[in-house]
């Protein structure tokens, strides 16, 4: 009985020495862009959730709108 009381007292006393973690949580997890937005504003020609399709869409868009040497020649 006495031993149990000592252990219980020690446990209560030592609990004050505990410390909550104070590390910085940092930024929240962000979803990958290829998951899409599910909104009507999404560009057509690619499938949400398919990374290869999304990359192809961006490459086609970049070449089509920014590289006029490709369009003209």
């Amino acid at each position: 009985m006495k031993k149990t009381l000592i252990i219980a007292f020690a446990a209560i006393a030592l609990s004050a020495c505990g410390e909550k973690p104070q590390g910085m949580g940092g930024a929240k997890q962000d979803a990958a862009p290829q998951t899409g937005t599910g909104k009507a504003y999404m560009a057509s020609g690619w499938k949400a959730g398919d990374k290869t399709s999304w990359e192809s869409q961006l490459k086609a868009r970049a070449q089509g709108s920014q590289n006029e040497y490709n369009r003209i020649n």
Partner: protein
Amino acid sequence: MARMKFVCDAERCIECNGCVTACKNEHEVPWGVNRRRVVTLNDGVPGEKSISVACMHCSDAPCMAVCPVNCFYRTDEGVVLHDKDVCIGCGYCSYACPFGAPQFPSQGTFGVRGKMDKCTFCAGGPEDNGSQAEFEKYGRNRLAEGKLPACAEMCSTKALLAGDGDMVADIFRNRVVTRGKGAEVWGWGTAYGSRQAGKPAGAK
């Protein structure tokens, strides 16, 4: 895919500020905050050169290094973003950034400095893609819509290029090789005071 990058072709930029306007409109950026701006060297002098500057989404971003609350993160595409719920508005990133990208709204009571705001490469933030919360904090998430940043897509002369780093480098290289000039305008010489910087090739 390589890292997402911006490149501005100084031979093409006509200082129209279309990129600045497109950015402010697309993301409904408040007064006093400019995620993008046009910088001109030798303004008013014949041969002046301009480039459009915003967050360059550095591969080794100094803002990330100095942030005391670790609010920055880098996406798999190399876009440097931040979490406004974690940002404390201390301004360290502003001092660390060589491009002056971090902006701070000061419309609150007594002009108190708010959370940092910067170019997101039109990739939104850590809220759900396309959500109202993401739009209100970070602006539109065009990358998740399968589009490129509005500033580059709106650029009338296609001076501002955005997208996969390898691809925009190829487009720019092709232009320089075809016209035979234009790569020398901006670089270390310009940043550190070369007397030839910004002048036509062959000029003294």
